């Protein structure tokens, strides 16, 4: 029983770490331009497709697969911001949300036309091994997934909190004009944010597709939504919050399926989210600052 439980916890960590990676992208973009980048799930999907192509058609080594996918998606992320979001920078927030939805639909249907609806099977790009700890079995893929996610998350968090560029990001997210007055190049900072967020999204996509072996045009929708929930649960705009939220959603989801109900699993995840938000209206790590009047 205990073993079974631990096994499920590891499953939860596995999904959770992927959700966390994707959630970071949401949170970063949200933080800086207050936009829920609905297209983020599709960034993740395209990231997975590029990795798939690199790994199958070009037989690239794993580091090259990851690097390639992350780089291409970073560029695409920046391009999306430039074309679709930048013109709406000073428009009402919800208008930009609608373009984001448009971009998401666009990318999804573009993938459908380019890649066709049949799922492609993602090759196992990580060295294959089963690691036994006691009687618990963990596959190397799971360990690598969790490990890679953690490393990137920690690096990113340090980057944002400790470096000048990171501080500039926060400044832009709070008050663009004031940031300009400090000499911050706002456009470049926003582009950088999209690049980082999209690269992490792509990484999440690759890891997701390796874990669940498939790549298909609508694969970004569910994890995208879950990651978005994770970002909100943790306190949107806060990077550590996105990580925490990702792990919590992954864990709750897995344990609910294992011990409560599979049919109601999503409902239960949402239920927990709602309850948490009712008690902590700005997410778990969200600052509960009362508006000063």
């Amino acid at each position, binding site marked *: 029983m205990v073993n079974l439980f631990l096994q499920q916890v590891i499953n939860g960590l596995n999904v959770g770490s992927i959700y966390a990676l994707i959630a970071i992208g949401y949170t970063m973009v949200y933080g800086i331009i207050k936009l829920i980048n609905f297209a983020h799930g599709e960034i993740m999907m395209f990231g997975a497709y590029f990795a798939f192509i690199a790994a199958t058609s070009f037989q690239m080594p794993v580091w090259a697969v990851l690097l390639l996918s992350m780089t291409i998606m970073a560029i695409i992320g920046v391009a999306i911001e430039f074309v679709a979001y930048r013109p709406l920078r000073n428009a009402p927030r919800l208008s930009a949300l609608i373009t984001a939805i448009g971009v998401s639909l666009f990318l999804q249907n573009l993938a459908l036309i380019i890649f066709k609806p*049949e*799922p492609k*099977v993602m090759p196992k790009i990580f060295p294959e091994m089963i690691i036994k700890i006691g009687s618990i079995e963990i*596959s190397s893929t799971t360990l690598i997934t969790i490990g890679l996610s953690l490393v990137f998350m920690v690096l990113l968090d340090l980057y944002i909190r400790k470096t000048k560029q990171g501080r500039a990001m926060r400044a832009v997210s709070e008050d663009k004009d004031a940031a300009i007055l400090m000499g911050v190049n706002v456009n470049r900072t926003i582009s950088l944010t999209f690049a980082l967020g999209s690269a992490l999204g792509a990484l999440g996509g690759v890891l997701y597709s390796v874990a669940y072996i498939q790549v*298909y045009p609508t694969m970004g929708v569910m994890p995208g939504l879950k990651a978005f929930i994770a970002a909100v649960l943790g306190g949107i705009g806060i990077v550590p919050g996105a990580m925490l939220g990702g792990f919590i959603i992954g864990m709750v989801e897995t344990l609910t399926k294992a011990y409560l109900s*599979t049919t109601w699993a999503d409902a239960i995840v949402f239920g927990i989210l709602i309850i948490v938000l009712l008690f902590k209206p700005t997410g778990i790590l969200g600052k509960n600052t009362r508006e000063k009047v």
Partner: protein
Amino acid sequence: GCSSTGSSNDVIKLGFIGPTTGDAAIYGSSAEAGAMLAAEEINAAGGIDGKDVEIIAYDTKADQTEAVNAYNRLRDQDGVIAVIGGTLSGETLAMKDIMVSDNMPVLSPTATAVEVTQDAPNIFRACFLDDYQGAAAANFSADTLGAKTAALLVGAGNPYSEGVSKAFETAFVAKGGSIVGTESYGTTDKDFSAQLTKIKEMNPAVVFVPDYVQTVGPILQKAKEMGITAKFVGADGWDGVQVEYADAAQGNYFTNHYAADSPSQTVQDFITAYTTKYDKVPNSFAALGYDAVYTMVSAIKTAGSTEAESIITALAATEHAGVTGNLKFNENGDPKDKEVTIIKIDGGELKYEATVVN
């Protein structure tokens, strides 16, 4: 509209309805590909009395409202004389009432829900009903595999998966077997480790997983990784699993409409033509879409008219030897005495194993 007065003289227009975008795109686009292939072949062979068959296909996004709009448009704007579709049960049920009141000749290739054809003299279907192959799979498991225990792994919220597994359960229990457990997953789930972990503990002889390739593949893969030794049995949704998931599916069985290694010329020709045209292996949706068009065309030929009532009468009496077996209809419009073929996956190939008639 300009073409709202029935079909013009030189082409015979058929409608096709199914999802080609969104989550269910894979089903609609496969069935559509099969249907288009059939139309192409028919036209190459001279069409219907020299008139070309034109298939106008509309996407439904698997959305019931879209389906109704698509159907209305096919009827009023495009002036089709018959419809192949819908592809999913839900969308077909949404259109059913209007189709019935229009008395439109309809042949759904793949809608498996019982109600689709009930009280609808003009609606037919080419696929088995859920109970039909569920029972066949149960009989095969009990009789041929000699299984006494079975576990069910069901896609909750997926009527196909739920329907087929319910039929399996009834038939399996009737054969004296026992169902040791039922696990389910949601339609968008990708992680099946929790369920499989439990099934492993139940240690059944057979695990019945009626779902489509993209779900079954990962399930089989995970099961193999977890070292589950039970035989996995599935239904026609598995067709295609041999391509990408050959290793994981090795040695398992599913019920299907036809066997890829069948000596039948129709089957072999279809597989060759489809693979050539689309550069991929056909699945059961493609085969059924293909057969549906042939069957409909054959009925139109027999009717000798594009008039609805005569097509329906002809359809009811049609018998077509297609890829998916010999298709003729009972009084409901469902396939009668259709053979269920049991397929074994072996070395990345689908091997004929047995034929079951319920």
